[in-house]
């Protein structure tokens, strides 16, 4: 109001001194204060980001290491033959691998004629996943039957925990998961160089398992990949087409206003509602299988669609109208103007919006819970119709498991998911730079 006074009455203006020091000081300090607030806000955000990453990484990095024991396993021929004395598929399938592993461990430790309790204790050092490991070695080359082969066998989660320091050796034996004897064996194996922490490829290849050492993200990664593919194939073309039509062709009337408001509303609908919708339409009405990544992809497409439409419309609107006029002016049809000029210029924005939509979909959990993607899936899905899980859902499932090994895996899986998100965001930045053109 003071300024208005000065403008309306020249007398007041002349009475006020130019560069009034008090006024100047007040303005400068207000500016500095504002900048300080902004800086403080950024610092707070950064602080929490650092806390988040420190906690995830410090708890999760061990998930990328897995203890294995190198043992010379004697593939005794009698284990793999049926009653006739021939090697058969059935016999290989039913062989007592736990015994083979235990015998090998017993030899390595130099224990002769162990009693039943000792046998049980030895067995506890090895993972239950060694069945598959040994069987895979045999299936790779059946001529190995009858020979003694060195194999890195997975150690049990308790051994793994002991090596990673999450089992405290000072805890009294009665309350410790491994007794003194087992600890001594583990130390001996480490000393001999037989027990090592190796990079945990299994984290990326294994499917679901009740043992943490044989549980991995394999199924979840494939499931998430299928879903991203379906979102990219369904949501992107539909979203871009809808946005281009609304922006360039649709008449401006009440109907398009209603559509526009509803698209914006859809973007704000809680994601679990999309899960319910998918359950009702895709599974109950259309009869698509539960737990399939196809259904997950379709639900995530519905969820991503508003994001893609809004981002594309914004990108199209940001193309200067002069370009459109130039194209129409030389006699391009409206569609030619759109495809030859407007869309290429809007492409960086569309790509960014689309990838942000995909990233959102990749991290989405709630709607997938509604359509059964929380299944215990051991085998890799081959098609999108097969049962699968998704990365965030796998994190959720591991987080609710009791075993100690799953805690680090939860964090490890979170790191993997974050890595995917980073890569996709980096791709968005790169693509935007790559396709950006000046006018």
């Amino acid at each position, binding site marked *: 109001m003071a300024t208005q006074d000065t403008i309306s009455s020249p007398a007041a203006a002349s009475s006020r001194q130019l560069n009034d020091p008090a006024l100047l000081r007040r303005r400068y300090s207000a500016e500095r204060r504002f900048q300080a607030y902004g800086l403080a806000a950024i610092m707070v955000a950064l602080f929490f980001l650092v806390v988040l990453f420190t906690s995830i990484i410090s708890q999760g990095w061990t998930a990328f290491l897995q203890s294995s024991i190198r043992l010379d396993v004697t593939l005794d021929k009698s284990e793999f033959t049926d009653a006739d004395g021939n090697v058969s598929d059935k016999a290989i399938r039913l062989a007592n691998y736990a015994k083979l592993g235990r015998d090998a461990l017993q030899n390595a430790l130099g224990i002769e004629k162990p009693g039943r309790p000792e046998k049980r204790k030895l067995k506890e050092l090895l993972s239950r996943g060694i069945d598959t490991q040994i069987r895979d070695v045999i299936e790779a080359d059946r001529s190995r039957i009858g020979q003694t082969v060195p194999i890195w066998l997975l150690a049990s989660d308790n051994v793994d925990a002991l090596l990673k320091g999450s089992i405290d050796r000072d805890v009294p034996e009665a309350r410790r998961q491994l007794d003194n004897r087992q600890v001594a064996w583990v130390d001996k194996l480490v000393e001999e160089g037989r027990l090592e922490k190796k990079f945990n490829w299994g984290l990326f290849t294994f499917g679901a398992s009740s043992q943490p050492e044989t549980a991995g993200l394999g199924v979840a990664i494939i499931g998430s990949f299928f879903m991203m593919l379906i979102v990219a194939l369904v949501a992107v073309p539909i979203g871009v087409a809808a946005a281009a039509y609304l922006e360039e062709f649709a008449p401006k009337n009440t109907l398009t206003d209603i559509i526009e408001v509803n698209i914006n509303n859809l973007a704000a609908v809680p994601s679990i509602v999309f899960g319910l919708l998918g359950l009702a339409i895709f599974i109950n009405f259309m009869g698509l299988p539960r737990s399939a990544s196809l259904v997950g992809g379709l639900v995530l497409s519905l969820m991503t669609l508003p994001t893609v439409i809004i981002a594309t419309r914004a990108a199209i609107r940001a193309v200067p109208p002069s*370009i*459109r006029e130039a194209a*129409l002016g030389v006699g391009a049809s409206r569609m030619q103007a759109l495809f030859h000029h407007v869309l290429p210029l809007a492409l960086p924005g569309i790509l960014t919006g689309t990838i942000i939509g995909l990233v959102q979909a990749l991290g989405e959990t709630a709607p997938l819970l509604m359509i059964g993607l929380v299944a215990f899936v051991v085998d890799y899905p081959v098609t999108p119709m097969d049962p699968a899980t998704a990365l965030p859902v796998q994190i959720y499932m591991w987080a609710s498991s009791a075993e100690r090994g799953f805690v680090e895996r939860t964090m490890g899986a979170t790191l993997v998911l974050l890595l995917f998100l980073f890569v996709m965001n980096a791709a968005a930045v790169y693509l935007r730079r790559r396709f950006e053109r000046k006018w």
Partner: protein
Amino acid sequence: MDQQVATPASSAIIRSAVDDPKVTSKDVCVFYGEKQALFDVNLDVPRNAVTALIGPSGCGKSTYLRCINRMNDTIPIARVTGEIKIDGQDIYDPDLDVVELRARVGMVFQKPNPFPKSIFDNIAYGPRIHGLVRDKTDLDELVSESLERAGLWNEVKDRLHEPGTGLSGGQQQRLCIARAIATKPDVILMDEPCSALDPIATAKVEELMLELRQNYTIMIVTHSMAQAQRVADKTAFFHIGYMVEYGDTKQIFEDPQDKRTQDYIFGRFG
């Protein structure tokens, strides 16, 4: 206001008849929704000459210009009534293809707006979409011819594949003129083509207009009365949606008849 509304359209002063006009307008009115922007414009534009449309801002001169290539069609709420003919053909005939029309009636805009593509592609775009050329040689020829006519060839012949947006403002505007010429139009509309240019670039564009006049019918909207005097054969003065006075440029500037024209030209308003 009452005074304006009371002015009947027929009161427009037409100082000199045009024989064999290129573009004829009869009772052209333009509405933007409820609002009428142009009232009963009757104007005959001579062939192979420059016709300037002058008047204060908001007088409807750009609106009228954009009727000639039906650019107003792109504004959903715009409605045009009356009749505009080019060479006797009604351009608002529902059977007429507006895309063809815009190839025949080129347009140059206020702000240079080359496509963010190479100089070559800027020129080649129109001929390509209209199928004006058969092969690469034809296209090369058409591009160089268009650039030559626009007086830009010598400046850009070595960098045809560099972006058109990298040129200076004046060069960009001549590029836009070359682009308009490339679709072989016979009418070129220019909407304040020099308002974003410096005096030297302006002089070049004006020189170009005088050259192009021999082969094209040019209509130019301008705020600069000096420019209208330098380039235009005919001048039409617009005021608040009415075409007030139309005649030879000399007549309009030296001896305006209407009070409003006099006020504008002698700098009493606008």
